[in-house]
Every structure is written in C-alpha cells, then in structure tokens.
C-alpha cells in the first residue's frame, strides 16, 4: 500500500521534477555562465572601441581581433619550429644510419637543435622559473612563519625585518641578485642558467613575505584548548608542531602561499625582462625592442596569457589545499 503510494507519487514527481529541474538548470546557467559571458562581451567591445582610437608609432593599438590573429600566428610558429626540429633530428638519424651501415665502428652523434625559442617554450620556461622561486620561498617561509607564530620573542625580533623588506620592488633586488649570482655561482658545468637563477631568486625574495605573515597569524590563532591539550600531554616540540600547529594553521598557510604565488608570478615577468631569462618577460621585452607592426598584438597575447596562467596557478593551489586540508567541509574560494 505504502509502496504503491510511493510509486504513484514518484511518477507524478518525475514530471514535476523535470520541469523544476530544467528551470533550475536554466537559472544556474544564467548565474554561472550568462553573466560572466556578458561581462566579457562588453569588455571586448569596449576594448575594440578604445583600441581603434589609439594610434602608436607601431601602428594601431591591438584590439581583440588582432590579438586572436596573433595568438594563432604564435601557435603556428611553434608548430613550424617543432616540425623543423623533428626534421633536423630525422636527417641526423638517417645520416648516422647510413654511416653505420657502411662502417659499423663509425662514431656517430646527435647534435641538439638550436632553433629559436617559441612562445610556448617561453611560457614553459616562465612556469619552471616561477615554480623554482616559489618553492625556495615556501621552504623558507613556512618554517619561519611557524617559529614566529610559536615564539613571541622571535616574532618581535623578526617582524621589523619582514616589514622593511616586504614592500621592496623586485626591480630593486634584481641588480644585487644578479651580482651575487655571478659572484657565487661559478662552475664549469652549470646546472642552471645564471639568468634563470637570478629570476628565481628575485621571485623568491619578493614572494616570501605573504607566506611568512599568514603562517605566523595562523599559528598564533590556534585554539588555546588545543595548545593546553598539548601541554598536558607534554608533547615534544616537533610532535606539537606536526600534530597540532600545522593542521590548525593549514588554511592560513595556504592563504599565504596563494598570495605568494600570485606575487611571484607578477614579479617574474619584471625579473625576466631585466635578467634576460628566456621566459614571458623576455618575450615581451624582445617584442618591444623588435618594434614590428605585429609587436603590440603579440605583447597583448602575452598579457592575456600571463593573466590566464596566474588564474590557473591560483586554482591549482586551491585544489592542492582541498587535497591536503583535513576540513573537507570548508568552503574555499
């Protein structure tokens, strides 16, 4: 009897449900897609309108259409370059095979392709550089922040230094870092390019601070009761940090790391321009020096790419936080 009633209700329910579902889908789409799309559309129109009215010595300021064309051009360039590289290696292999067929003892070697770096190669270099710099910064900043949060005395003595160096521009650090790297990194067989190290260290110096500060705040705001539990149990310091401090501070540590990564990505472009690290910064600088009629469009492609990658990096950190954090219910944004 009750089963029948349930089925009956269900059948009617399905019809009603699907209509309400449709409307709710429509509403969700409206909220999550339509508004952002409308915003982007309006922005593109404004951009095009403004761009048409700006004339520079390198031609008209690029609008969305030109930028789209340029991005296709850059991609095509990349594919051409890859084909050339593949052909180059193929030729070498063919030649070596022939030589080995004639004389099995012949010495053969493969020379690496030395074509110019494409836009995509430069994006990858930039990502690699920023990751390295960010990694250095995190390895220093998280432990430092934890110590500052645990000890009022350490905090009091370190805080003035943090506050002084925090607002320093990457451009101010760069000459110093360059000279220090040149002076100290002297090997016959360098594992890293000097320009790479200079850029990465500059990134690290500038993106240390948000992580240090937020970790400190996170550690100082641990629930007093939990600290007391640890004191009653007489947990050794390392266990205290591992079992109580780090899990409590994880959300703030991640907030700091996200701010740091965003700062680092911003700083990187400036650092690469001056250090000539073959990444996005150098790409922009080279295009600017190049001064062809395509240059502004290509720079604009880089600008949009930088923005999108920054956004993606932040999402990536958020995903990582979701994986690591114990609090799966927490709403992260």
């Amino acid at each position, binding site marked *: 009897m009750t089963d029948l009633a349930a089925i009956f209700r269900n059948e009617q329910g399905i019809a009603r449900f699907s209509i309400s579902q449709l409307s709710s889908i429509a509403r969700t789409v409206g909220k999550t897609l339509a508004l952002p799309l409308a915003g982007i559309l309006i922005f593109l129109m404004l951009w095009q309108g403004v761009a048409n009215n700006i004339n520079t010595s390198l031609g008209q300021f690029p609008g969305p259409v030109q930028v789209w064309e340029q991005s296709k051009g850059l991609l095509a360039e990349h594919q051409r370059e890859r084909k050339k590289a593949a052909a180059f290696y193929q030729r070498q292999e063919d030649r070596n095979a022939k030589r080995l067929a004639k004389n099995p003892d012949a010495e053969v070697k493969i020379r690496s392709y030395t074509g110019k770096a494409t836009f995509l190669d430069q994006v990858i270099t930039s990502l690699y550089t920023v990751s390295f710099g960010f990694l250095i910064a995190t390895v220093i900043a998280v432990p430092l922040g934890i110590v500052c949060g645990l000890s009022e005395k350490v905090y009091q003595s370190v805080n003035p230094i943090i506050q002084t160096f925090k607002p320093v521009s990457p451009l101010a650090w760069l000459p110093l870092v360059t000279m220090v790297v040149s002076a100290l990194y002297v090997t016959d067989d360098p594992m890293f390019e000097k320009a790479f190290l200079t850029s990465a260290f500059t990134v690290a110096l500038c993106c240390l601070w948000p992580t240090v500060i937020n970790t400190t705040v996170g550690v100082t705001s641990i629930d007093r009761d939990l600290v*007391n539990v640890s004191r009653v*149990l007489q947990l050794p310091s390392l266990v205290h940090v591992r079992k109580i401090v780090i899990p409590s501070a994880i959300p703030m540590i991640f907030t700091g790391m996200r701010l740091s990564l965003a700062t680092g990505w911003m700083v990187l472009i400036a650092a690469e321009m001056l250090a000539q690290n073959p990444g996005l910064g150098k790409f922009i600088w080279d295009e600017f020096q190049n001064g062809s009629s395509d240059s502004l469009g290509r720079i604009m492609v880089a600008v949009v790419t930088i923005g999108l990658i920054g956004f993606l990096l932040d999402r990536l950190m958020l995903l990582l936080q979701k994986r690591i954090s114990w609090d799966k219910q927490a709403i992260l944004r």
Partner: protein
Amino acid sequence: MKNPYLEISHIGIEFATDGEPFRALQDVDLSIDKGQFVSLIGHSGCGKSTVLNIIAGLYEASEGGVILEGREVDKPGPDRAVVFQNHALLPWLTVYQNVELAVKRVFRKTKNKAEMHEWIEHNLSLVHMDHALHKLPGEISGGMKQRVGIARCLAMQPKVLLMDEPFGALDALTRAHLQDSLMEIQTSLGNTVIMITHDVDEAVLLSDRIVMMTNGPAATIGEILDVNLPRPRDRLALAEDADFIHYRQQVLEFLYDKQKNPQIEKKPTDSARKLQEVACKPASSQDDAAVDTGKTTTGTDKTRAA
C-alpha cells in the same frame, strides 16, 4: 599525620591589568584524598577554573602551591588530565587517533603496539564510543565528543582527573547520561576527580565533597560540604531522598543567600566589570606582569580562565 594525596596549599593568584593587579584567588586551601570526587561550585567569574588550571599546572600560582603525592606541581602533565568544557578534540584526528595521541605519549615505554591498541579501544568502550572509532569529531554529536574527551583523559590513567564544566555545553538529557556514565566509571576505577560545575544537582549527585567558593575578586573557599550518600547512587531514587534534598538545599543556600550572584545583586561598575573580563581572558601582557607578583612564570600561561 598522614600527608594528603593532593594538597592545595594556600594558593592565590594575581593577574596584571592596565591599572592595579587583579587578585582572582586568595588563600585557597584544600586537601583531597585518593579516590575522592570533589566538586567546585560557585558563581561565574569566581575563579573556579583558575583553581583547576593551577592544579593542572597551566597557570602558576602567585603564592602557595599544589602538592600531588608529595611532589610539587610546576608544569602541566598527563598525571593531571584535563577534560575541557569544549572537549578540545583535535578536529583533524579521528576519535581513535585522538585517544591514541595521548596513549602513545603516556605509555610509549610501557606498552607495545597491540597493548596500546587494546587500551585505546577499552577506554573508548568505557564511555560507550566504541562504535565510532574512525569518525572525525566533526561527524559526531556534542555529547559524543565530550565522551571521547573523557576517554582520552581516562586513557592517560591520571592521578587526578580534572574536569572543567565537562557537561556545561550539553543538553539536559545528554548531561544526565554522561553523569551516569561518569559515576559508573568512577565507581569501578576509583579515580580521584575534581570537577567544576554550575549545576547544584550535578554536584550533589556526583560528589563526595562539594567545595563552595565565594565571589571574586579575591575569591576563596566559603564552605565545604561532605556528601555522605551511599554509592552507587541512583538519580531517580535520590530525587525524593531526604538527605539528597537537604544537601541540595545547603548548596543552594550558600549560592543564593550567602553568596548572591554579584551580577544580579547589583550591576557591577564599569571598572569592576573590566577587571573581571580581564581576569577571564588573560592576555599576553598579563603573563609578563605576573612576574611582578613575586614568582616567575614561564610566560606561556595564556590559558582561558573563564
């Protein structure tokens, strides 16, 4: 004369404020025998928690001291386990892991892995929580969390079990269940317990002695009531028991006649209220200034003194 098991000897404590130091406790003197269940009762802000925190070693008394089995208490330790009002479970560890953290710490030299495992499960089953071993604290109710908090403390096999309003945040039914569980456990294990409470019925039902505190500032022990009700006690039978009602009456008289709630009696002046707030929430500055009161403090005593 035989030395008492736990001796709280003429303790007093002063907290520093912006102005004059605030004297929270004055000359609190109490001896407790092994296996006794003692309740501290008094109006809010009278320094009950401060007494408990001093016994726990989380605060350092400005004068006087606490001696447990012939040794002076100078820092917190697992022999004086504390059940906190808000359970204080680590939210990122499961029920089992929360107890495990304590057990691993206390029995690292005396129990092997299997024994520890058994001991953790045994203590959780004492508080009837063996069905939720692998749940996170966020997934169980408030009463269950408090049960786990109690299990964690029992598992440390403390010399004294300190309970800071353990059931204060729970609803009446859950509280009754937990009180029954606690009585059962205390009867079978013979723990020495000091419990802070606001609840007169709870105090009479559970305690061997009820220590009634006067109102602060400079709070001290007003009266001590020995509760000679036979154990095991049954809350239903006791509800109409003449002795029970008599004990209850005596506590009520103390609280509502001799020591009227200062907040009802008259509105505290602004400065008095401020002092009280400061006393309940010692900030870091108070630790620094606690040095002025004659004894040095470790500088880490930033505990709630609510």
